[in-house]
């Protein structure tokens, strides 16, 4: 069968040529008329049909391989295998189409890539040196977006996989290196982009090619042909170089820390380690031995690069200065060149700093002397570049200057005045800092300024004495101007910390430098403001500032606390109306709260002002119980250390005890109550306050001091629990005190007892209620101790109770509950309950017997009420009275102090 017209169906579609149709020419000489005359004649009946019709020619496929149903094909019906074959097609268009097809298949059928990735890469890498630009570009895209990510995704649990990847990468790198030396400039430049891609994705593969790669970098950068005609194309080369250098820098850095670990691993493990590392993604955290780089030869290469880079920087700098407007490309090139130079400097410094081993030949090779000859001599010209820029005020220029300053700063330990005068440099840096405020592009600025700020403490330390002043001035100004939500605040705080606290870095400023201390005060003065602002705007800064403040407090005992006065606002402010407004302290994280509390320990002179707001914080519900207890504890420590007045501490403790809001929770249905009970917190607070007070010394003396606070608090009739706490304070300090004897206090005690028993007495006829009885016991406890120690108090209290029963209205004003029951039976029940509980205390019997007449009076009164037939006493009430009378009588008899005659009348009456 002959070849059908139009060629094979498969290829015709791909190479369809869009030929322009031949234009209709003519019609110039004369106008062409269209004549539409009548209908067309129908064809004669006997005409022969000359039309030839044929169906599409279908060639039956003859092989199994091309049976495509269910196979992964692209939209043109081609399998991966065919597409891969086509990538080597002589026609560039076919190759490009094949690459697009591969991309399509991989997107549609990800399993194809998984299964055949080695084959795909092996085939594709041949295209790195492709002559067609578009082919290379699309190859770059495929590798970047599809193949490399999936290559990293795969879990390299098996070693074989790792091996296959490495061998694949090996081929890939061979091609890339080949491309780098290609005659065609475009291919050469493209190869550098490929290298960058590989380095970004598989950093661990780089060390083995580093030397060759840097060779090529040197070659391409020193190539005059490119230098002249296509500088902008070098951008990508420079950025690739930047990546490679940062890898080397990282390796040298991690060398120190991880060397030991890595050496402990066996080779096989280390291998896995590195490949695993690639999987983990990020380009920043790679730990592999710097030994992988052949350092000494690498350094020689880098040395060549320095010269070239500086040359190119000089050229582009002068170009930029010559032009009126700065174009993006050239400035980018300059910036990445500076970046590369910076990295090289870092690597060199690290190498020079390395502890030199005695037997190593490298001692002479890469010591500080070597650094000087290789690097510093060239840097003189860089200094010239800076001078060139000095006149211009553009943002971009400023960035160049910053970058140059950064390079010089990291080299500063090795720079002596022969290379550049230190003073001039200090002036340069301080002028840069001063300029910082005037800049527009903040984000960019922050990125480039932060290394400068990090280096400031070291620079200031090493600077000659007369230039220290303006460096410090510039630094302080910039620090003052720095906003809290600015990224620069962290480096600033670090710098301040380093200069304030020499512990961290071991940089000790000379003690006699009095000018330094002025700046210390200035910095410390800024801290509270930053702290307060940061709480809303930048929570991460809060912690750093608090830590810094704590260290300042710990290490600088002489610091002037007046500077820190705004710190009070952290806890609260007294508003004009006299109420306390809580500060942001209660909403801080626990960690920050702890730091803030610890700070208080070291700034005791602030305490008199802080203690009020602090108490307000303690009383707010928002504060965690844990924190509350900690605050009390720390204040007690401060008191013990002798930094807090005893009266302050006493008033703080009594205030807490009187005002702490207790939510008792619901005893019967604890699940339903919306308020969580904080009884436990109150109990531990109670305990803590009591132990703190008892640690302060002689109880009666302390009570003398605290009495004013206490009596004031008690007179205000706080809730039951607080009242109980206040009574407990009295009992703990000195239960025998004669201060209780005043009538007002007795009335308060009586009122307190009545309040406490009211709840219980209402239900007394329904039988014994353990919960409430226990609560009452808890309330009555401090009173029983008081009564035990002081029989006169007991006596007068009982008198008071009696007058309550008999309806003396004068007592009602002292009761805290407004709706106190007025009917007789309730009053009797309440008092009876109290008496019964008191009688149950065995140790009170003796004191009770002193006031037996009062008890007798009460009994008699009740009986009289029972006997008299008053109309308004209902039958139910009478029953209540009777049962109360009986109970009280039984208890009273147990006191064993009655002469038989005394009670006879009462007994017989019933």
């Amino acid at each position, binding site marked *: 069968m002959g070849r059908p017209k139009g060629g094979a169906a498969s290829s015709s579609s791909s190479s369809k040529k869009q030929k322009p149709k031949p234009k209709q020419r003519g019609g110039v000489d004369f106008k062409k008329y269209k004549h539409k005359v009548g209908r067309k004649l129908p064809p004669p009946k006997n005409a022969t049909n000359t039309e030839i019709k044929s169906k599409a020619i279908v060639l039956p496929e003859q092989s199994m391989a091309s049976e495509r149903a269910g196979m992964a094909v692209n939209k043109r019906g081609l399998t991966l295998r065919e597409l891969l074959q086509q990538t080597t097609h002589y026609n560039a268009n076919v190759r490009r189409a094949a690459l697009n097809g591969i991309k399509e298949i991989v997107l549609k059928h990800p399993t194809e890539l998984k299964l055949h990735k080695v084959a795909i890469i092996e085939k594709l890498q041949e295209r790195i040196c492709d002559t067609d630009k578009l082919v290379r570009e699309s190859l770059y895209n495929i590798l970047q977006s599809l193949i490399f990510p999936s290559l990293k995704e795969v879990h390299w649990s098996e070693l074989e996989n790792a091996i296959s990847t490495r061998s694949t990468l090996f081929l890939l790198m061979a091609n890339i290196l080949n491309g780098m030396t290609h005659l065609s400039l475009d291919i050469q430049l493209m190869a550098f982009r490929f290298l960058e891609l590989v380095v970004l994705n598989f950093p661990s593969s780089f060390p083995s090619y580093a030397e060759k790669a840097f060779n090529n970098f040197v070659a391409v950068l020193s190539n005059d042909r490119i230098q002249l005609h296509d500088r902008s194309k070098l951008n990508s080369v420079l950025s690739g170089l930047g990546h490679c250098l940062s890898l080397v820098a990282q390796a040298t850095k991690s060398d120190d820390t991880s060397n030991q670990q890595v050496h402990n691993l066996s080779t096989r493990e280390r291998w896995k380690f590195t490949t695993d590392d690639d999987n983990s993604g990020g380009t920043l955290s790679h730990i592999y031995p710097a030994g992988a780089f052949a350092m000494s030869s690498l350094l020689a290469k880098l040395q060549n690069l320095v010269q070239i880079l500086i040359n190119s920087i000089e050229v582009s700098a002068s170009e930029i200065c010559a032009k009126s407007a700065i174009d993006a490309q050239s400035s980018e090139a300059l910036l990445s060149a500076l970046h590369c130079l910076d990295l090289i400097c870092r690597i060199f410094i690290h190498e020079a700093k390395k502890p030199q081993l005695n037997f190593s030949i490298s001692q002479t090779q890469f010591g500080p002397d070597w650094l000087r000859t290789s690097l510093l001599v060239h840097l003189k010209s860089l200094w010239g570049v800076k001078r060139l820029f000095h006149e211009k005020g553009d943002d971009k220029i400023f960035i160049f200057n910053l970058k140059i300053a950064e390079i010089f700063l990291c080299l500063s330990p090795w720079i002596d005045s022969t290379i550049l005068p230190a003073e001039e440099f200090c002036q340069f840096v301080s002028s840069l800092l001063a300029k910082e405020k005037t800049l527009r592009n903040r984000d960019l600025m922050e990125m480039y300024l932060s290394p400068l700020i990090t280096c400031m403490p070291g620079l200031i330390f090493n600077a000659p004495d007369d230039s220290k002043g303006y460096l410090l001035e510039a630094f302080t100004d910039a620090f003052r101007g720095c906003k809290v939500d600015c990224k620069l605040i962290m480096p600033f705080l670090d710098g301040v910390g380093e200069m304030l606290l020499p512990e961290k870095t071991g940089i000790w400023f000379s003690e006699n430098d009095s000018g330094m201390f002025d700046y210390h005060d200035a910095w410390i003065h800024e801290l509270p403001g930053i702290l307060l602002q940061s709480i809303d705007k930048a929570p991460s800064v809060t912690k750093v500032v608090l830590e810094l403040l*704590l*260290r300042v407090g710990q*290490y600088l005992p002489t610091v002037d606390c007046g500077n820190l006065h705004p710190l009070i606002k952290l806890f609260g402010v007294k508003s004009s109306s006299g109420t306390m407004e809580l500060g942001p302290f209660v909403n801080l994280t626990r960690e920050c709260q702890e730091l803030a509390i610890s700070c208080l320990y070291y700034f005791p002179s602030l305490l008199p002002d802080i203690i009020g707001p602090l108490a307000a914080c303690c009383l707010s519900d928002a504060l965690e119980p844990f924190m509350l207890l900690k605050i009390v504890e720390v204040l007690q420590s401060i008191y013990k250390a002798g930094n807090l007045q005893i009266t302050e501490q006493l008033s703080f403790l009594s205030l807490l005890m009187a005002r702490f809001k207790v939510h008792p929770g619901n005893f019967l249905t604890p699940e339903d109550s919306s308020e969580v009970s904080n009884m436990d917190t109150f109990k531990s607070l109670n305990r803590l306050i009591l132990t703190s007070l008892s640690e302060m010394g002689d109880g009666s003396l302390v009570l003398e001091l605290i009495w004013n606070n206490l009596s004031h608090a008690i007179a205000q009739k706080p809730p039951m629990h607080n009242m109980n706490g206040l009574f407990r304070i009295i009992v703990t300090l000195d239960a025998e005190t004669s201060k209780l004897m005043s009538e007002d206090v007795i009335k308060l005690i009586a009122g307190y007892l009545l309040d406490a028993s009211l709840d219980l007495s209402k239900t007394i006829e329904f039988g014994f209620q353990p919960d409430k009885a226990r609560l009452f016991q808890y309330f009555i406890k401090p009173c029983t101790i008081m009564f035990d120690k002081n029989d006169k108090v007991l006596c007068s209290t009982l008198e008071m109770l009696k007058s309550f029963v008999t309806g003396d209205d004068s007592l009602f004003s002292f009761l805290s509950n407004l709706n106190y029951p007025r009917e007789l039976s309730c009053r009797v029940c309440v008092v009876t309950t109290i008496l019964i509980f008191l009688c149950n205390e065995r140790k009170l019997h003796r004191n009770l017997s002193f006031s037996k007449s009062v008890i007798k009076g009460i009994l008699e009164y009740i009986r009289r009420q029972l006997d008299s037939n008053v109309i308004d006493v209902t039958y139910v009430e009478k029953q209540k009275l009777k049962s109360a009378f009986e109970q009280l009588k039984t208890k009273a008899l147990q006191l064993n102090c009655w002469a038989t005659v005394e009670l006879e009348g009462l007994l017989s009456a019933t």
Partner: protein
Amino acid sequence: MAAPEQLVLAASSADAGVAAWDLRTGGVANRFHPCASRPRAVFSVADRFLAAAQVATGGGNSGLVHFYHWGKPQVAVKSFPAEPIHALIADPEGSYLIGGGSNGNIFLWEVASGQLLHTWHGHYRAVRCFALYDYWLVSGSEDGSIRVWDLITMLDEQSRLNAKTLYLYNFSQHALPVTDVACFLGGIAVSSSEDRTCKIWSLPQGRMLRSISFPVSIDSVALDSRGHIFYAGGRDGKIYVAAMGVDGSSHGSDDILGALDDHSKAVTSLASSTDGLLLVSGSEDGNVRVWDTRSQQVIRKVKHSQGPVTNVLIVTPKNVNLPPLQPLRKVCAENVEPQSVILPRSESDVLIPGYKTCAYAERVLDALQMHGDSSILFGAGGSNQKGTDWRSRYLELQDLFAGEVLDQMPSSRSN
């Protein structure tokens, strides 16, 4: 002669003297008057005599340190250092006395002559406590920092100049004042602080191993001699028993194994007997209790005074003929040849079976003695070279010890 009697000593911050009881019988042995000391300011110098720094009373910037002989209840020697001393410690041989001042200065005296060998600014605020780990001094301060000093470096002027910083390590993880610190074999130190934590440090490695949080401030720590647990005396009157857990396997709430609860007020001072069976605690409530650590019961309780007990010690007094005690000098003397008096202590040279490191230590020491007499170790002006050599060997030894302790931890815990 009967077995040496062990005494419990207790001192108070109120002026109640130092009381001594027999550890076994509880009978009152002696009472030294007058004495009012801060926590960690009473120390028995090699069990030969007692040194107690006094609370500063009113006027005067200088401090006061009393020495007492075991036999006599009165003060034997009074000395007046340049500033009030807050913490005292002496080396096990009793050759040096080290005091921490209220301004953060550390004083180093030679006991035999009373000479002030060296004084240096150790902390920014008052020194609160000391511990000695052979020739490493661990000091804890009110500023929350713990510093480790090498006494050999501190005594040698040349190596002082060479050192970058005077201290070996500076730990600043505590947020509030350090209240107590104790050392254990293998260079493991436990520190307690008012920030409610105890932290465990490895001195040879110079880092924190772990931090244990307690529900209250901790005022004192004592190590169990077996080294798996330590006792921490809390502000709330409980003595917490906490697991050392240096192996790092356990973290979290199970660190605190239990609590001995009998004191009503803060436990200010703890002392553990050498066999680890008895623990003596002193509290703010004025009582001294002796605990049986196995049954965790109080086996003896003695009332010291109304005021708080600040120090408890367990000592075995030795009545040896001392050269007459010299008061401690205020200032460093020029060009004084320090001479250390080391009394023979044959009974302390006990071979511990199973400790290979002990044999190793002896070998090292033998080798050292070949090079010269032992005075080079302690001589201030001695050859620097030998000193550093000795130190490197010493560090090696310490690592061995640390390794051994760390290895033992998990197995003993699982038992």
